[in-house]
C-alpha cells in the first residue's frame, strides 16, 4: 500500500476547514432599503385626478410619496397595511411617484389597485380599460 505523505494530509485538512467555514455556511439576506416606483399608464390625455391603494406586507413602514413629475399634487393616508393615495393634476403615462420602503425585495408582495380616475370635466372614468398601474423596483 502506498503511504500518503504527512504534509499532504495537513494541507487537505486546512483546505477542508476553510471551505467549510466560508464557502458553504448559511448567510441571512440583508434588507435592501430604497424607493419603489409607482408607474401609471393611461389611454387618455385628459386625466386630471386619480386615486389608488397600495397594500403592503404586514408591518412594512413607508415614507411619504414623492412625485416624479411636476405640476401634480399628492395626498396620502395610511390605515393598517393599506396606503391610499390621491394625485391631482394633468397625469401623464409613466413613472408617477416613488415611496421609500425599508426593503425593496418586498415589492413583489405588494399589490396596487386603481380606485378612481377623473377627467377634465370631473366625470369619473367608467372603465379602466387601457389603464395599468404597478409597483416596481428602480
Amino acid at each position, binding site marked *: 500500500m502506498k503511504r500518503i505523505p504527512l504534509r499532504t494530509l495537513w494541507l487537505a485538512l486546512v483546505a477542508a476547514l476553510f471551505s467549510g467555514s466560508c464557502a458553504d455556511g448559511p448567510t441571512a439576506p440583508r434588507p435592501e432599503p430604497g424607493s419603489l416606483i409607482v408607474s401609471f399608464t393611461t389611454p387618455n390625455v385628459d386625466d386630471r385626478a386619480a386615486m389608488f391603494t397600495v397594500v403592503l406586507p404586514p408591518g412594512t413602514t413607508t415614507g411619504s410619496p414623492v412625485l416624479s413629475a411636476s405640476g401634480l399634487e399628492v395626498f396620502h393616508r395610511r390605515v393598517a397595511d393599506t396606503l391610499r393615495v390621491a394625485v391631482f393634476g394633468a397625469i401623464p403615462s409613466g413613472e408617477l411617484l416613488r415611496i421609500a420602503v425599508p426593503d425593496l425585495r418586498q415589492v413583489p408582495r405588494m399589490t396596487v389597485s386603481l380606485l*378612481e380616475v377623473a377627467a377634465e370635466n370631473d366625470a369619473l372614468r367608467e372603465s379602466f380599460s387601457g389603464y395599468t398601474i404597478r409597483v416596481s423596483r428602480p
Partner: protein
Amino acid sequence: MLTRVLTFALAFCLPAFAPKAQEVEVVGTLHTVWRDPLRRGDAPVRMFSVTDDSGRVTPVVVTESQAAAYGGLDALNLRRVRLAVERGRATALQEVQPRTARLQAFLSADGPRLMRYVTLLCKFPDFADVTPGTLADAELNFGQVYPGAGHYWNEVSDGQLSLQGSIVRGWYMMTEPRSANVPGSYANLDAVARDCAAAADADVDFSQFQGVNFVFNYPVDCCSYGGSGSLSLDGGVRSYAMTWLSPVAFQGLGTIAHEIGHSLGLNHSSGSYGLVYDSRWDVMSSPDWAPVPGTAKFVGAHVNAYGKRQLNFIPAERDFLATPGTHEILLERSALPGSNNNYLIARIPAPRFGPMQYYTLEARGIGGYDAPLVGAGIVVHRVGGGGATSSNVVDLDGDFDPSDEGALLTPGEEFRDPLHGITVRVIERVGDAFRLRLDVAANPMVTLASPQRLYRVTAGSDSVLVDSALVTPIGMGEEAGWTAGKLMSGPLSVATTSGTGSGMLRWSLRTTGLAEGVYDQDIRVAASGSIWADMRIRLVVESATEPMLAVLAPSRRDSVIAGGAREVFNPVTVSGDGSDTTTWIATTSAPWITMVEDTGTGSGMLRYRRETSGLAPGMYVAQLTLSAPGTTLAPLTLIDSLEVLESLAWRVVERGLTRETVIQGALPKLDSMRVELDGRHGNSSQWYAIQRGGQYYFVPEFPGPVGSGWVRFRRTPGDLEPGIYPARIRVHLGFDSSQEFFVEDTLVVTAAPIGITLSSNVTRDSVRGVTSFSDDSVFVQPTGPGSSSRAWRAMNARGLLAFPLAAGVTPNQRMGPAWLRFIRNLADRTPGWHVDTIQFLEVSGSQVLATLIDSLYVAPGPMLTTLATSAARRRSELRAGSTRALEDTVLVIASGDESEQVQWTAATSSRFTSLITPSGNGTAALRWSRSAAGLAPGWHVDTIRVSAASVGASTMIVDSLWAYAALAVSGATQRPAAMMGAPFADTLRSSGGPSAPPVWSIADGALPAGLTFNAALARVQGIAETSGSFSVTVRAVAGADTALRALEFVVVEPTLIAGAVVEQLLGGTPLSEDQRRYLDLQGNRNGRPDIGDVRAWRRRQALTLTAAQRAELDSVIGSPTPEKKP
C-alpha cells in the same frame, strides 16, 4: 363673549378632592340599591354603598349634585369612585379611572347578552317553620316560560337579554336569626346576602353568575330591594346584580321584574304627580297590577322606551332624535316589535326645561305583556326633569291618573308644547305602528358627527392616539362660538377647546403607563343657551396575555327519549392577545354525536347534535376535545353525559271540546283533557302544556303534572272581536322538549246581540193652546258586550218630536248610556190627543231595539198670536272697509188666531245692517243688507228686533259679521337661507283674509334648482342644488281676496375644511351627509362624493394650500407630504 367662555370653562371643572382630617377616604365600586315598600303608598329610598378591593362595604349617603359632574347618580352606578366620608355622608366624590367593574361593562354592552342569575331561597332560623312556596314554584316564577322572569325580560329586551342558564336553589337555613340582621326598620342587606350565599356556597359556583336573587321565607323588613352588591365567594370580590325579595316573589311576578330592573341599573319612572308607583306604562313604576289568568299571580307591562334605550335593548338605528323641522316617522309597537326599520323610540329635545331634558314617544298597549294596558296609542314621557324618578308620563288630560286612556295619543290627536314649539300629531295607525308627524321649532343645539369612539391598546404601549370630529352648531347662526372640555380626569387631552361655527374638534390620548381597564373620557361641546353634545370616548387597555380557551359548560348532562335527538349549543370564548385570529376545533370519537359547528375563529359557538337512534336505553358518556392547532394552548376536555330513556307513548284521552263557540264578552270557559304517559319513565316525567300560536285566549295552568294527568285550561274570549281563533296546545316533556305533540283547539267568538233598555217606554204631557213649552227626556241604556261604547240612534217617525241639537254631535246619535232629551213641536196642534213614537236602533243597523210612545194632550183654549223667525242667528264675513253689500233674508212666522192679519215692524241696531223690508203682514220675508264700510277689523254684532205691537208679540235676530283685514303674505321678504346640499323647508304664512284657507301658487320667478313649492302646505322644500339669490312672486287667493308678494330666496354654500374633504376622500372620518351631497353637486353629480367632486371643489375654491393649511391638513391625515421630487 369672554364671560360665556369663562362660564363654560367653569362648568367643565371637575370637583376638587381633598379629604379633611376627620374624614375617611374610601376607594371602590359604587353600588346602588333601591328600597321599594310593599305598601305602594309609601315612598322608595335609594341607598348607596362602596365596596373596596378587599370586599369591605361602606354604606354612604351621596347626593345628585355631587355626581352631577359625572353625569348623575345613574351614570355613576357600578363605577369606581374615591369618596371622602364623614359620619356616613360623602363630603367629596371623584370618579377613578380605569373603570374595572365588569358588571357595569357587561350591562352597557351592545348586542345580545346572556345574564345568568342564581336565585337562592333562604330561611331565617327564627322562622324555620315558614315555607311560603316550593322550589318548583320559584323555578316557574324565575323561569323562561310565561310568566317567568326570564320570559319577561327576553320579551322586554326583544331578545337582547337572555336569562337562560339561570338556576334556583333552596331552601337553605341561614345561620343568623332575622332579629340579628333586621334590628329596626332597615335590614342589614349585606349581612343577610352574605349569610344566604354562604349557606348555598357548597351547591353554587358563584363565578358562573352575574346576578343573585335572594328570596327569603319571611319579609326581610318592610320592603323589597333591587340593585347591586358584592360577594367574596368562589374567587375574589365580585360585583353582582342583586335583588332581595320577600315571600311576595311567589305572587308578585311584576315585583321580581321590577327589582331585576333595578339590578340592571334602572331607576323608577312615574306619572307627573309626585308619586312613584302610579304609571302602569312601566314595570319600573307600577309592577303588579295585571292578573295572570288562572293563578293568584300578577305581572306588569313593559319597561318604558327610555329604560330600554338605557339598557341598549333599542339599537341606535331605531332611536329617532328629532332635529328642528318637520318629520314624519313610523313608531313601531314597543312590545314584540316587528323586524323592520320603524323606530322604537322618538326623542325631542326640550332645552328650555334644562340642558339635557327631552320628551320620548313610544307606541304602547299592543301585544305581549303590554296587552292588558288600557288601550293602544302613543305615550309621551318627559325625561331628565330631576326628582326621584328618571322619566315621567305626560298625562295629557291631567286627571291625576297617568295610567288611563287620557295618557294615550291616538290617531287624530295632538300633543303640543308651546314653550318649545313642539307639535306631535298621530296621523294614523299602520298595522302595529303609528305614523307620527313631528313639528319641532329651531331650538339651538350643537351636534357632533359620529359622537362615539372606541380605542383598544395593549397595556405597556407607548403611543398617542390623535382623532377629530366635526362640530356643527344649529340654529345659532354661522358665527356661533362654542367651547369644549373633558368631563373626567384621565389620559385625554382636548386640543380644540373652542371654535366658531362648523369646525373640527381635536383630541389626543396618551397611553403611556396606563394600567389595564376601561377609561371613559367624555368631551362636552357647548354653546351658550343651546343643547350641548357629548363625545363619548372609551379607551380599553387590554392585558398582554396569551390567548385562553374556555367554554360555558365544560360538562353537560341531559336525558333524552330513545330515538330522539337534541342539539347542544356551548359558547366558546377565546380571550387574550391574538384571540381574534385564534382558530379552534372540536373533535370527538363518540358515534352518537354529530358535529354541526365544530370550528371557529375567535369567540364563537360550538354546536353538535346528539342522535339516539339505534342507541339502547342507558347512560352514554362522550369526551370532546377542544383545541387550537398551531398555538401553544392546552386542549380542553369536555364531558357530555346522555341518559337515553325508554320511549314514552303519549295519548290524549277524555278530551272535551275541540271547538267551542262563545258569545263575545262571555266569561272564561273551563275545559280539560287527560294526557296518559306510558312507558318506564312515564310516571316520573314532568310535562308542560303551553299555547303556541293564536290569540292569548287559551290559558293553561302551571306547573305541569308529573306522570299521567290532566291539562286544565280556560278559553278566555275577553274582548276578542267576533271571529274564529285557532290555537295549538303544545305538550312537551320537561327534560326533553323535543318530545312533544300538538293538540288543535278552536274558539269561535260570535257577536252578541245588542239590546236597549229605556228608563220609561211611555211619556206624556198636556198643554193648553200654544202658550206652553213641552219637553221630556228618557235615559237610554244599551245592553250586551261593549255596551259602554255602542253607538245608537233615535228616529222620530211622525215629526211630532224634535231632538235638540248638540254642538258637533248628530242630533239623534249617542254612544253608550246617555239621556235623550226631546222637545214637542207644538205648532199648529189642534186640541185633543196626539201620539208619536221614538224608535231606537243601532247606528249601522235597521233593527228597532226599543220604542218610546209619547202622548200629548192639547187642551182647548185661546190661540194667542206669536212671532218667530226661521233663523235666530246669522253669521257672515266681509273685508273691513269694503263697500260691497251682502244681503240676507229670514222668514218671519206669525202663528195663532188671526195671525195672517197681524202687522209687524222690524228695527235694527244699525251697526252694519240696513233693512230692506222694515215691515210686513203675517208670515212674510224680512230682508236686510250688510256693509263693512267704516268697520274696523274684528267681530261686529247687530240685532234686528221684529215686533207686533197690536198683539204684544216680538222676536229677534242676532246677526254677526266678521270684518277681516286684507289678505297678505306675511313674514320677511328675505327668506331663511338654504344651504346647498342640505334639506330645506320654509313654510309661507298669510295674514288677514276670510276664514277659508288661501290657495297658494307661484305667480312669477323660479325657485333654485332642487327646491319645489308644495302648494297644499304652502311650503318651499327640497335640497338646493345651486347657490345664489332667487326672486319669486307668490300668490295667495282666499275667497274674493288675492295677495301677491315678491320673496327673495338665498342659497349659500357650506364652508368645508380642506383637511376634512381630503380625509373623507382617503377613507377617513366621513363628512356629514349634507356635506357629501354638496361635494357631489360641485362635480359630476353621480350621487356620491368621489375624486372628481373633490377636484371640482378644489378648483372652485381655487385651493392652493398655504403652509398653515398644509400643516393643518397633515395633522388630520398623517405625515407631511412633499410636493415635488427633491
